[in-house]
């Protein structure tokens, strides 16, 4: 698999250098092949966004990357801006979590998209605008030709989010890294966007890294999933294995805290405890404080990823001893 991967990340480490050195992400590895979608899930603060940014060379100042990020065979860790500039927008595109910040308030949405087209393709103004309008149309902006003349603040939240997705996909990149691209979208529009990504994957072999909080979206659309906690790998593998048969207690806890089908209480189940912030990683397994299966050993030693079944990896000392239905670990403990 690794030889065919379009994107191959090995032993990724992201270190904040100010005010003092702290590892925000440690030893994370994954790969994505052409046409494939990898979902990255995990609680807030797990390091999903900075991992996504590291892939694209878009980390903020004050963060350092080590390990390896290979895109189409080329090593990007330590690559110059010139190398990245050739890739951005053209071969790899980004939908950041704060998507609205990508749009300039002083240009119309259509002009911004057309500019993106022209920066990559040698086409005229008119052709670029046509392509821009088509891109808005395919993300479901009604009356796209007219709406292209609007400024971002004249769009609704969901329309702006779609405009950014249109911008990322307008040049048919090989890889799109999308950080929570559908959070502001209602189910109807969300389905449309995910279908669009699926179509682009099938037709054009586009690869997608999708950072999402929505496990249902991951389950339905992704091929593989990477679960992160406190900047570390928790579990990864084919989506049907990891989400149907989670081996790491953390993944099980995420699944157990989904709103139940029929609930009488107005209170929702939630995983007990709060996520540790990566700034203060405890010794041992980062999840130990919240884990119903934790032992003394867990609090002293950090688990390494181990392969459970082909391609299904989990970082948990008790991988082999846990009950078959790991979600049972959380039965009753969610409040």
């Amino acid at each position, binding site marked *: 698999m690794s030889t065919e991967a379009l994107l191959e990340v090995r032993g990724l480490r992201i270190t904040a250098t100010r005010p003092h050195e702290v590892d925000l992400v440690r030893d994370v590895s994954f790969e994505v092949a052409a046409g494939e979608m990898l979902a990255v899930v995990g609680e807030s*603060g797990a390091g999903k966004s900075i991992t996504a940014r590291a892939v694209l060379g878009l980390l*903020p100042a004050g963060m350092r990357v080590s390990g390896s990020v290979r895109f189409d065979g080329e090593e990007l860790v330590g690559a110059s801006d010139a190398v990245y500039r050739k890739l951005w927008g053209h071969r790899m595109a980004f939908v950041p979590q704060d998507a609205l910040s990508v749009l300039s308030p002083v240009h119309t949405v259509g002009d911004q998209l057309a500019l993106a087209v022209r920066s990559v393709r040698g086409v005229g103004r008119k052709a670029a605008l046509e392509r821009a309008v088509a891109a808005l149309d395919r993300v479901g902006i*009604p009356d796209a030709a*007219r709406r292209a003349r609007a400024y971002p603040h004249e769009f609704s939240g969901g329309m702006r989010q779609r405009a950014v997705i249109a911008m990322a996909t307008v040049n048919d990149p090989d890889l799109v890294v999308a950080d929570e691209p559908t959070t502001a979208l209602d*189910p109807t529009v969300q389905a449309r966007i995910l279908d669009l990504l699926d179509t682009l994957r099938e037709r054009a072999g586009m690869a997608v890294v999708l950072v999402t909080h929505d496990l249902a979206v991951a389950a339905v659309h992704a091929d593989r999933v990477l679960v992160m906690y406190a900047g570390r790998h928790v579990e990864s593998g084919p989506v049907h294995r990891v989400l149907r048969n989670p081996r790491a207690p953390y993944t099980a806890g995420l699944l157990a805290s989904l709103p139940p089908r029929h609930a009488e209480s107005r209170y929702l*189940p939630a995983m007990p405890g709060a996520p540790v912030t990566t700034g203060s990683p405890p010794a041992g397994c980062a999840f130990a404080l919240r884990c119903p299966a934790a032992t003394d050993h867990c609090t002293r030693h950090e688990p390494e990823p181990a392969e459970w079944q082909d391609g299904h990896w989990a970082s948990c000392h008790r991988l082999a001893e846990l009950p078959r239905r790991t979600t049972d670990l959380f039965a009753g403990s969610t409040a």
Partner: protein
Amino acid sequence: MTAPLLEVRDLVVRYPARGRRTPPVLAVDRISFTVDAGETLALVGESGSGKSSTAAAVLMLRKPEGGSVRFGGRELTTVEEPGLRTLRRGFQPVFQDPYGALSPRTTVFDAVAEPLRVQGRWDPATGPARVAELLDLVHLDRSVARRLPHELSGGQCQRVGIARALASEPRLLVLDEPVSALDPSMRAGVVNLFTELQDELGLAQLFICHDLTLVRHVAHRVAVLHRGRIVESGPARQVCDAPTHDYTRELLSSVPDPDRLTVKDGHGWRHASSRCELA
């Protein structure tokens, strides 16, 4: 009968034309609804249907073109700015975009303290403890107080926004997709927090939300917006379990198919979809 806390009648929001090539947009077209103290009304509807425009009008961030908005028995549409400022303490927003609500150079501490300062309720002796209490309330580690927004994750930012809204001790929260940016576990935590505050303080909520499972759980009533009009409304479970309008059905049916998440072995199944179950 006591009057509702919030009473909206025939609300109209129209964005004016800009030149000849962009005609006016009628975003909200004569909608009416009420929210009682201690009640949650969810506003659902597809992107562009007028939810945020409604919220902005209720918050008097944009004067509606027509209709009336009464809060605690007072008509808001005729009050001018200095008067509005005091009234606003009673109804506080939490917005969709976690980063947008915070200014990039203001620390978390100052962001949460700001409403207290602006409202002249800042006491240097007790203020910091109050800020810490608000951070606790939204489950933020106190150590984030010194950080700037760009040093926070999306979910952390959003909780700062919620702490800010709570600082004013409002009677009504206007929540424009407050939890969309949160992970499910934190989403449950924050929504439970809202419910808790509601149970304890009788807080009312106008809750704009795309997650229909959530809506079914926490809202008392739902109003479905479609192209600026309310096409269906009623008790949350009734609307979610037995929608009568085609558009509501469509909204409910477009959520991802949860079957691939069904855990096949054992007792029944759990599912992971953001959808209301059709009864």
